[in-house]
């Protein structure tokens, strides 16, 4: 059952801070392009964060790759509704590979926020949790409020794959990520223990 119709409209930066606060074991986090990774950046630098500067829609595939490479590390993909709608097939790939260490978080404000606020399909007809379930990710849920978001996230880290969707407002991201792709990638690889 979907609870999108009565889920509280929350704030992405607030939820991102709560999410980062739950990370105690050097979990990897992939921040999708735009406001998603701006808020991840502003929630506190972590060497295990990867900030996407392009390739819209690939946060979940990148996270899947990290999850396959490092099966003992939890990996979290943060993605916006517009980005996910661009690459819906990746949900079926995740379901098929079924990595236990992968959590997907979708921030759904129903708009392409950074390009001028044009409406996405999730503003009216597309239910992203229903799509995820239909793609085979059974552990998919809307977070009704902040507290439930935290509970769902804690549960997701215990075993996935999982998808958590949160309705969010249209407030812009806080701050902006440094735009140096090599530095971002290299720091991330250090954070994952691949670079010594």
């Amino acid at each position, binding site marked *: 059952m979907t609870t999108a119709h009565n889920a509280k409209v929350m704030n992405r930066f607030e939820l991102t801070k709560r999410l980062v606060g739950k990370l105690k074991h050097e979990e990897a986090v992939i921040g999708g392009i735009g406001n998603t990774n701006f808020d991840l950046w502003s929630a506190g630098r972590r060497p295990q964060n990867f900030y996407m500067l392009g390739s819209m829609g690939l946060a979940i595939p990148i996270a899947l*790759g990290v999850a396959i490479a490092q099966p003992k590390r939890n990996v979290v993909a943060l993605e916006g509704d517009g980005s996910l709608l661009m690459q819906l097939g990746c949900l079926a790939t995740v379901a098929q*590979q079924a990595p236990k260490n992968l959590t997907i978080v979708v921030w759904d404000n129903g708009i392409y926020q950074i390009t001028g606020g044009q409406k996405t399909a999730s503003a009216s007809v597309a239910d992203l949790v229903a799509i995820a379930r239909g793609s085979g990710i059974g552990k998919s849920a809307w977070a009704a409020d902040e507290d439930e978001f935290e509970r769902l996230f804690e549960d997701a880290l215990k075993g996935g794959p999982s998808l958590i969707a949160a309705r969010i407002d249209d407030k812009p991201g806080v701050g902006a990520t440094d735009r140096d792709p090599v530095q971002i990638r290299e720091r991330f690889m250090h954070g994952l223990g691949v670079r010594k």
Partner: protein
Amino acid sequence: MTDSETRAVSWHDTVLKSLKANEVKLAVYVPDRVLTPLIASLHADPFFTCFACTREEEALGIVAGAWMGGLRGAVLMQTSGFATIPNALASLVVPSQIPALIFVSERGTLGEFNLGQAMVLKCMRPVLDALAVDHHTITRGDELGFVLDRSIKQAVAIQAPVVFILSPLLTGGKVFVA
């Protein structure tokens, strides 16, 4: 065994051995008829984690993530699929300096009749040249192992993607009944 069967066995076996020798353990693909024997042998070998995904840029994202996590990966596709990845190349793989190993089955040439594939093929090398991505068109089985082994090592060493375009001269291509 016919000539084309002999040739088919040798090229895909060489690719598999080259990947193995260079510790490339992940193979993600969007299917292609010509690549089928290679895909089947990768699935059959427990050394590899091999699976299909839904789109070529998705495959690049997966391999990019795997590389950053310490696992080498290859992407397999056909020419038409290449046309879907310039954004992922230009905004992820190239600027982040990720040694993605990209195998493209060359379609739309040497006797194919689908104009759609032929036109996409005309875009491929100019796009790669514009992005300064190394690419090798391989036509001969006796050069295949050398090209792959040296180029995989170079890609890892210089942290840059490389594209291997597998010509019908190598693979036999898709055979059509006139």
